[in-house]
């Protein structure tokens, strides 16, 4: 065989080998994405994949994630925003999320919650899997690698476990759900708004003397954020999302005031949810929380709209509603409305079920076998009163052997949309599906 023929055979083999390894790499990447820790959430993926412009971006931990609803901000104020906060997110990692976000888009301002700005040295204090949730959706690139390298220095699992989800989470095979295989597109603009009601203990407010910052890891990261905002010409906004007494004690308040002072000095805005402001917005610690420390939709609406109002005037933000260039935002809001009806089937508790339909486009009918049980379910009376519903006493035929039936209809056409049956669980003192 002539020599050139030999060479062509070798090239063919090399080519085939390369194709094989490419296919193998694709298969590994796909599997890696499948087993990735995501708790069914793709909201950060959505943000980084879509080319949109925003007025505001929100960063922080669960307090922020559950504390500001961009859909409400759009529908009430015409402000475009996205909530990029995630559970347990330490400010050190928020810095990288913000950096990646600013590489993608330039909002008028970025809003950051004080809660996870730790002043302790040498710690990140964020659960390992939550660190993945914070960073995994960041687009491939230098910022993501920097973020992984930084995060890996705090976890014994090491850099490899961050770079390769399959290495870190392959044993999730026993916990895979439909959401892992089928990507669920959500239109909630990143927020996770709680729809249940739980009382929270109000904090005691002290005077506003700023504390002395030690310059711990979290504070250093926040200062890096201020620098980054300056470079990118984006206004930093620091807020203290309302939480309970235990999480907002004197030391936390002193830290908050010191950080707010630094923010203002850096040309940023600080919105202090102090006693006066809480009174102004009418935050009710009995009904505006979804659990002991996180706001529910009532609280989130009050806080979110207050932030929007402040920033709208301070930054001269324009109401985009009616602007054809922003038609997609209205479409998304409509889609989120439809999606909420689909999400009803996941709600197992009556208050949560009802409040998910807190929207004038829906009408709710509540049938109950024993109306005196309503007052025993914490928050149910409040939910009924806010939604303007009068519970109807019904016999067993209507509630089909259960204790309660909730029916959701279209307010305009009276078309049936969804229904759910509940039993009264005496142990939990709640109307629940099981």
């Amino acid at each position: 065989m002539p020599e050139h023929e030999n060479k062509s055979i070798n090239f063919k083999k090399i080519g085939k080998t390369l194709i094989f390894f490419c296919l193998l790499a694709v298969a590994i990447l796909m599997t890696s994405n499948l087993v990735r820790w995501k708790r069914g959430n793709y909201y950060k993926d959505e943000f980084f994949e879509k080319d949109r412009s925003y007025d505001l971006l929100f960063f922080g931990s669960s307090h922020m994630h559950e504390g500001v609803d961009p859909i409400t901000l759009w529908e009430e104020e015409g402000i475009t925003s996205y909530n990029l906060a995630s559970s347990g997110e330490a400010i050190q990692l928020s810095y990288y999320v913000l950096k990646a976000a600013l590489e993608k888009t330039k909002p008028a301002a970025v809003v950051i919650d004080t809660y996870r700005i730790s002043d302790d040295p040498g710690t990140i204090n964020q659960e390992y899997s939550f660190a993945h949730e914070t960073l995994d959706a960041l687009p491939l690139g230098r910022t993501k690698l920097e973020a992984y390298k930084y995060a890996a220095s705090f976890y014994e699992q090491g850099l490899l476990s961050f770079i390769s989800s399959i290495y870190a989470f392959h044993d999730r095979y026993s916990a895979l759900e439909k959401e892992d295989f089928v990507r669920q597109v959500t239109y909630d603009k990143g927020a996770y708004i709680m729809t249940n009601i739980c009382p929270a203990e109000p904090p005691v407010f002290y005077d506003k003397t700023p504390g002395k910052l030690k310059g711990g890891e979290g504070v250093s990261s926040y200062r890096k954020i201020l620098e980054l905002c300056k470079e990118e010409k984006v206004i930093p906004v620091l807020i203290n999302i309302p939480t309970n007494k235990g999480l907002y004690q004197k030391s936390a308040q002193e830290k908050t005031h010191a950080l707010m002072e630094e923010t203002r000095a850096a040309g940023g805005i600080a919105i202090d949810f102090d006693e006066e402001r809480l009174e102004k917005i009418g935050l009710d610690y009995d009904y505006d929380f979804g659990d002991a420390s996180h706001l529910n939709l009532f609280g989130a609406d009050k806080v979110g709209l207050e932030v929007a109002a402040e920033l709208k005037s301070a930054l001269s933000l324009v109401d985009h509603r009616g602007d054809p260039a922003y038609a997609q935002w209205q479409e998304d809001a409509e889609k989120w409305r439809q999606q909420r009806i689909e999400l009803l089937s996941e709600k197992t508790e009556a208050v949560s079920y009802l409040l998910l339909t807190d929207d004038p486009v829906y009408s709710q009918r509540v049938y109950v076998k024993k109306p005196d049980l309503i007052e025993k379910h914490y928050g149910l009376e409040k939910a009924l009163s806010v939604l303007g519903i009068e519970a109807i006493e019904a016999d067993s035929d209507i509630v089909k052997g259960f204790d309660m039936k909730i029916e959701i209809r279209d307010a305009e056409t009276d078309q049936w949309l969804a229904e759910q049956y509940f039993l009264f669980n005496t142990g939990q003192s709640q109307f629940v599906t099981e």
Partner: protein
Amino acid sequence: MNFHSFQYLIFFPIVSFLYYLVPGAASIIYLLLASYVFYIQSDWTYAVILLLVTVWTYAMGRYLERRRDKGGSNRVLIPILIFTFLPLVILKYSSFFLQNINMVTGRLLHVSFSPIDLILPAGISFYTFQAVGYLIDVWKGKQKAEKDFLCYALFLSFFPLIMSGPIERAGHLIPQFREKHRFSAEKVRDALLLMVWGFFLKLVVAERLAGYVNPVINDYQKYGGCYLILAIIFFTFQLYLDFESYSCIAIGSAGVMGFELFKNFNQPFLGMSMTGFWRRWHMSLTNWFRDYLYIPLGGNRKGKAKQYRNILIVFGVSGLWHGASWNYVVWGLLNGFYQVIGMLLKPFKEKVGFASGGQKRDVFSRRLLKTLCTFFLFGFSLIFFKAPSFMTAIRIIKGCTVWNPWVFFDGSMSALGMTALETAILVISLAIVVAVDIMHEKGIHIRERLSYQETWFRWVLIICAVITILVFGKYGPGYKASDFIYFKF
């Protein structure tokens, strides 16, 4: 460095890729350096001991050849062998000897010696045996003393086999070092497939079995009856698959660079007698004992009684080789006794029709019964192998007699991680292992058959295999993968 470590996944492709680029004359130095880099990852002192053993046995090989040519007697060889065994004996067995001396002196003289804590270099049992085999072969004229020190050093330190064998022979391996292997896509593919199979055996099956076996055996007082019986059956599979996986990765690693190493296993659990089983189990060690201990003791040439004695000596020493503890000796002797009893019962079995031979007797049910008997006899002996001491082994045997078969049905097993999904993965994996062994036994070579298939089919199969290992394998952060069991020997 473990074969299933991330470091090896980096080290191996680089070393094997560069091997083909290094000029022929430098390939021995290159592989020697790579092997020491590999070995030094465990501990640099290990490498020093290996180097000392290498220098000593290299020099003694040359010396023995000269003495043999002058017609020396075995009196020359024996002190050299004793001295060669010395590092192994001191480092591995001194604590064991002291314990036993203390037992005697403590009772009789009320004197005891404090135990000494010595390092035990990884692979020392393997390379010492390899070196001793080489010296005996040189003495007997079967092997020329190696003149090239680097080549000899590579023979003892070659990274695919330094940790746990296979125990090679100089006549088989050294000539391969002298050849410069040309890259062969087919051979590399075949070797990589063998490695993939090895990783499957280790990470998906053996480690999964270990997840059940270790907690049950370590806490044997809590678990009795069926828990323990299942743990022993699982351990029997685990030991085989763990060592077979190591051997596959070792042979595959060498194969990628064109080297051929001895096979260690030949479907051992399809053996139908203990003698047959031992011809298939850890063959490189069994053959070593046959050639360098059993035959020199007289083998089967000096009558039945001496043959039985020789079998028991070989298996007793083999037990001791595995670990410096009486339970290993008991394990070895028990396997020796199985064979002796088998030989003694042979005439009786012939009479009642249990022995092999004859067309009618060679039916599936008979073969299955004999295979199962062999499996369970070996599994029973492994209680002494797995237990940390002889008395613990006895307690485990007692624990097996507890009657609790309901634990298979009332969900108790799930507390030990045996959920429905985990059980399904394990059962399917073991079924694949058994099926592959049966196919090999029937002469069906899967990798060879696979090479005849169309490219797309091969690719799909290989990609599925890799993904299966990556997803269902037991590894990753938070998971402390156990070393290969034979590393500690």
